[in-house]
């Protein structure tokens, strides 16, 4: 039976809500890939759908895709501070430091109390080597984020070669978190720059207690041992380093130097005893 020509078929497409509901159910069950597939080809533009999609993509580590999803959200909701902040995080994790700064700044202009955005902005500014701006940004953080803000200030000051101030802020961090490995590692680097071997040794030993396989701690101790001509210790630390990081050229080289020095020191008395037999032989 043919249809009369005056009848028009109307297909009622469902909105985005069923897709979002399906995706949320899948996500809550841990099926992130399936949840993402449920949000593919949306029937209509819906900012919430793109927000959920961005969240799932972020959780899956697809930061570039997540950035595109959040970008779609901020286009339709320019006053959405959360979306700007999430977009900034995605850009940061995609190594788009400059763009992430802009997104963080936009989030802060919409919500000046958002300290996490300030922290993120400071971190991106450090990568861009805009150290004074980074320092100023960390100074603006409220006391709620005192620990990480102090760490940020310390890093900015260290890179600005204001070592004394940097160390003070690192000590603030260590006072609240004595096991902060990155703080101790940066303090070892600071000790190297200021040529303070005692501090290098102290921070390295402290770090080694927390993390027995820390390359920074072993390198610090090896440097001190090599500088102080403690050949056995130097060889021991370098040996551990080459086991942990076989591609560390410096460790291989310094291990050989330390072993040579041990051998030389071992042979020196024999050469002296030999006396006339080795006459004319230069002792290293």
């Amino acid at each position: 039976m043919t249809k009369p020509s005056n009848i028009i078929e109307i297909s009622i497409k469902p909105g985005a809500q069923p897709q979002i509901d399906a995706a949320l159910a899948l996500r809550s069950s841990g099926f992130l890939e399936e949840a993402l597939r449920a949000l593919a080809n949306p029937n209509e533009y819906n900012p919430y759908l793109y927000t959920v999609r961005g969240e799932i993509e972020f959780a899956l580590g697809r930061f570039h895709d997540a950035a595109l999803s959040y970008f779609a959200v901020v286009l339709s909701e320019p006053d959405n501070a959360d979306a700007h902040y999430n977009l900034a995080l995605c850009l940061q994790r995609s190594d788009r430091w400059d763009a992430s700064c802009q997104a963080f700044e936009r989030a802060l202009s919409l919500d000046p109390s958002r300290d996490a955005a300030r922290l993120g902005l400071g971190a991106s500014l450090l990568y861009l080597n805009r150290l004074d701006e980074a320092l100023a940004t960390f100074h603006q953080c409220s006391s709620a984020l005192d620990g990480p803000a102090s760490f940020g200030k310390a890093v900015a000051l260290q890179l600005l070669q204001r070592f004394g101030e940097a160390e003070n802020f690192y000590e603030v961090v260590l006072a609240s978190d004595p096991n902060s490995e990155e703080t101790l590692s940066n303090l070892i680097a600071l000790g190297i720059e200021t040529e303070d071997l005692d501090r290098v040794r102290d921070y390295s030993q402290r770090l080694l207690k927390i993390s027995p396989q820390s390359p920074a701690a072993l390198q610090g101790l090896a440097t001190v041992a090599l500088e102080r001509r403690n050949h056995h210790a130097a060889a021991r630390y370098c040996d551990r380093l080459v086991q942990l990081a076989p591609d560390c050229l410096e460790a291989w080289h310094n291990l050989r130097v330390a072993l040579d020095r041990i051998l030389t020191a071992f042979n020196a008395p024999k050469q002296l005893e030999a006396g006339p037999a080795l006459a004319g032989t230069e002792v290293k």
Partner: protein
Amino acid sequence: MGNSKASSVAQPPAVGIPAFTESGHDQTRDFHFAVTWVTLFAHLDPIESTGPRPRQETSPTLALVPTVASSPLAASHSLAEQHSGQDSNAAWEMVVPKMIRTGQRTFIPAEDERNQRTQELL
């Protein structure tokens, strides 16, 4: 301390067999000490939405048709009441807007005017 240096720039990992020909036999090589700030990122988590955002109420559009909240008479009454206590000698005048016609109705349809000109030319 020799020449060990700390740097903020991470070096790419070196792969291969170590070659010791670049420096003297007894010369130590500097380790690379990097300044890092990965800790900061531990405090930066995305904000998860709790649901669709309420749609922003758009500002009321300006109506093209003028709206009158109250009749002019009522408005003048209320104004008079307001001012009566302040200045009882105030005089009120009602202004009636007039439509002023500038002349006789001389509208000619464009088609008629063109026909008229054609006839004149002929």
